[in-house]
């Protein structure tokens, strides 16, 4: 792994397929990796992490990672820990809904304007966490 990649923060959303929360987290991560902090972040497929193959274990081992989970099952966080990733913080989409009581966010297939707003706000929070991680801030976990 190059030194440049070593400094990048790994982002892993749960991408849950059953509820809107999974899509909101997935889109927030894509916004950070694609627009807000493209130079500072890297994506890893959660499905590959689930396989626990040697290749992904080597890639994740000790890598500073921020997970974004849709539901309290915390699949992304748990699976990243299992392959040796170092969790800087774990964001939860359900927390992002606290300031949007009653919002109709859409479905696991597509987001409404409310859903995109929640996702974008989550992306802004996530970008700040990436900055903290790169500056050597304290881990939440």
């Amino acid at each position: 792994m190059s030194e440049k990649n070593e400094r990048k923060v790994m982002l892993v959303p749960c991408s849950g397929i059953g509820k809107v929360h999974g899509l909101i987290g997935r889109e927030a991560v894509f916004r950070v990796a694609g627009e807000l902090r493209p130079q500072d972040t890297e994506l890893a497929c959660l499905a590959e992490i689930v396989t626990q193959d040697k290749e992904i274990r080597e890639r994740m081992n000790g890598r500073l990672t921020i997970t974004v989970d849709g539901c309290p099952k915390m699949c992304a966080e748990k699976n990243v820990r299992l392959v040796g990733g170092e969790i800087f913080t774990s964001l939860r989409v359900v927390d992002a809904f606290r300031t949007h009581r009653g919002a109709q966010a859409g479905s696991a297939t597509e987001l409404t304007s409310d859903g995109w707003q929640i996702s974008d706000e989550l992306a802004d929070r996530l970008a700040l966490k990436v900055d903290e991680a790169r500056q050597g801030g304290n881990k939440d976990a």
Partner: protein
Amino acid sequence: MLEVKKVGIISCSGEECAGGGISRLAARHVLESTRPGRTVTICLPLFLAGGEEERYFARTFPTITVDGCEKRCAFRATEKLSGHVTKALTVSDILGAESAAAPSFSQRQLNPELERKIDTVSTALTEAVDEIMGKPAAAEHLLKPTVPPAGMRLL
């Protein structure tokens, strides 16, 4: 031999390439539009993060995996952690490696070309569902084909 009432679909939803997004949206299309009520899904990472009831998925339903790339993570993880996969589809086989390996996309970036690709994969997936529905399930691979274990969260 047991009659098949519902078919399980597990997509990789991979975040690192376009194939993952295509697999996810094709699976959602089949679940919601082409075969609603005949198909169920579960989040792949629940096989490790969830309980025993979630790991029963592929032993409860004849299951189709839809993978974005040739790594076939959904297929391999399902076989390893849940049970026998009845049919394994791969976006790179259906659309070609170049389409599958293209950069991942936000749904904000959906365009007619991507929608055509998603439609092609969802058609293949629908056909795979019909093929399984038309056949009795092989009993040796199924635990209880129509009655999920207590506590299983069907999506």
